[in-house]
């Protein structure tokens, strides 16, 4: 394989990992009947937490855990609004995104004012940098450890949702909350737990972005990646395995955009940066929304 293809494939994998975690978070929540439009905000908050904690502790794993906790906390806040009250899930999601965007750029400015250098340690960028020149093995050694975690998470999510009892219960709450309630399931509690888990997955996605892709933070670092993950979930018909593939596709788009831009192939570089967004629009256009979990997006009121 030529080195261009190898580095392109590596970049594809690297750019796909944040999308994969986020897509799993969205998918899990929607399977239980709650839209997780707040994914963008959860990713942003996760990314900032991860970068700041990594700089402070110089330990990327503590940073990863902190990011997923941040995401989980936002998930719980979101569940207060969308499950307990319940308010409109889309409006709450949009508001969460706006709040997180504002809050992260405020905290980011404060860290700059305090003279912090927000450059995260690069230890999450590849799992075994020493082996990168070995043929074949070198390719897999250059993946981020988070990429392997993401793959395991995809498989576990699939098995959990479609091969276990609790997974079936979770999906039943997404298909018909009232039927699930009648069958003795505590829908409110279930959705709260699910949003917490979904938030922590999206926070992880943010951590992957902040620690393994850019190693830093800027205002609106995610640049719509949460919504690209959202499109990937619809594209993949709420199936974790297909979502993995869709995220790889969108990751490839992102990788291609930067590569083409660097190669300077004639066109204005900003055209290439449009690629992931235009690709997402085309994907949505080709495949439409499809039929998701029937009760996703509907507020659930007991009784």
């Amino acid at each position, binding site marked *: 394989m030529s080195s261009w293809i190898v580095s392109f494939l590596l970049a594809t994998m690297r750019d796909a990992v944040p999308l994969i975690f986020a897509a799993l978070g969205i998918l899990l929540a929607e399977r239980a009947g709650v839209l997780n*439009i707040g994914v963008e*905000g959860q990713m942003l908050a996760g990314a900032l937490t991860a970068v700041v904690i990594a700089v402070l502790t110089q330990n990327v794993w503590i940073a990863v855990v902190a990011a997923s906790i941040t995401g989980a906390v936002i998930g719980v806040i979101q569940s207060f*609004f969308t499950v307990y*009250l*319940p*308010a*409109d899930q*889309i*409006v*709450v*999601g*949009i*508001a*969460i*995104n*706006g*709040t*997180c*965007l*504002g*809050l992260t*750029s*405020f905290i*980011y*400015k*404060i860290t700059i*004012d305090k003279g912090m250098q927000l450059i995260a340690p690069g230890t999450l960028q590849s799992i075994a940098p020493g082996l990168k020149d070995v043929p074949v093995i070198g390719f897999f050694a250059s993946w981020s450890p988070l990429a392997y975690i993401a793959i395991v998470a995809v498989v576990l999510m699939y098995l959990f949702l479609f091969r276990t009892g609790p997974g079936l219960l979770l999906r039943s709450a997404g298909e018909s909350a009232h039927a699930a309630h009648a069958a003795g399931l505590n829908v409110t509690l279930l959705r709260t737990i699910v949003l917490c888990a979904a938030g922590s997955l999206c926070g992880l996605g943010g951590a992957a972005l902040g620690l393994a892709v850019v190693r830093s933070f800027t*205002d609106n670092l995610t*640049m*719509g990646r949460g*919504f*690209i993950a*959202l*499109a990937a979930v*619809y594209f993949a018909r709420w199936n974790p395995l297909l979502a993995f593939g869709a995220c790889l596709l969108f990751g490839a788009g992102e990788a291609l955009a930067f590569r083409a831009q660097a190669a300077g192939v004639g066109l*204005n570089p*900003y*055209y290439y*940066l*449009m690629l992931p*967004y*235009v690709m*997402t*629009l085309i994907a*949505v*256009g080709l*495949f*439409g*929304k499809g039929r998701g979990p029937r009760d996703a997006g509907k507020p659930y*009121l007991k009784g």
Partner: protein
Amino acid sequence: MVVAMGRWQPLFIGGVTLILSLIVMGLCALVAGANPVTAIVAIFEGALKGRYEVLATLAEFSAISLTGLAVLIPLRTGFFNIGGQGQVELGALAAVVIGLFVTAPGWIVMIIALLGSLVAGALAAVVPLFLRVQRGASEVTTTIMMNFTCVLFMYVMVTGPLKDPKAFYGTTKLVSTAVRLPTLFEGINAGVLIALGVAVLMYLVGRYTVFGLQSTAVGCNRSAALAGGIKVDRVMVTAVLIGAAIAGLAGGVQILAFSFRVAEGWSKSWGFQGIAVGFMGGNPLGVLVVAFIFAILETGSRNMQAMTGVPAALVSLFQGLPVLIYVGLQAAIRISRWKTGAGRSRRRVVVTR
């Protein structure tokens, strides 16, 4: 708990939301090491203390009130237009292109430029609309994707075909003074009046026209509206195109009244502020009130930074936090009513043609 406040309820929720949001903002200022009261007072001073400050606030207001309307009008039919930012960018580009390249008497060019910005804004909504109506795709994703696409397209234009060859960064040339919107009295630009006029017009349309009633019907209960013989898709498409056109106009007005050119990073996040303003405004006149508050925050934030050292980014909290509080309060009141049985059947939409 509050039960049945009738028509004063939105005002009450809005007031409580504003106070709670300011409290949270004050707490954040405290975390940043400043006196919260000083910081918030500095915001209001920076936005209102003198003629210059008030004019700057009005300039922001003209943009935010229009982008707020751009969210509100589609929202009434159940469409979340989060693509305001992209629509602003396209509208601004259209105004600049027409302002620079059309040769005619100044005021004619000005009017064509404003019309062009309306059309360009509406064009930015065509793809999400098509995907929603034809493919059932949620506009929440597609309008966001259009935002990035349009902003990047603006970058393509200002660093490429429209770039001022003399400039060191991506910017267009300035539109000539003849095509700019005039200053009317006390230094207030005509652009501010355009924003006010559009809001009043939209208020009248919403209240006194068939289209206004139909939009409300579609937004309140889509299937009932359909059963009532309303062409729901057509009403929604019209509302979205009007909304997006108004966002485009926001861009056009900013160009012709205040910034005169499009450049890298020329715009503020008007489109995103419009989301919060549109949600909380409730009706076009309410949008004006909320937009003015947002304009104060935006304009005064620099003064706060200068006076207290709290980063101006603090006010960007307002892009989401008040909406969260607002919908939370709204839902809490609705549920408590629903549980107590009060007002269970008070809201009824009667559709007649």
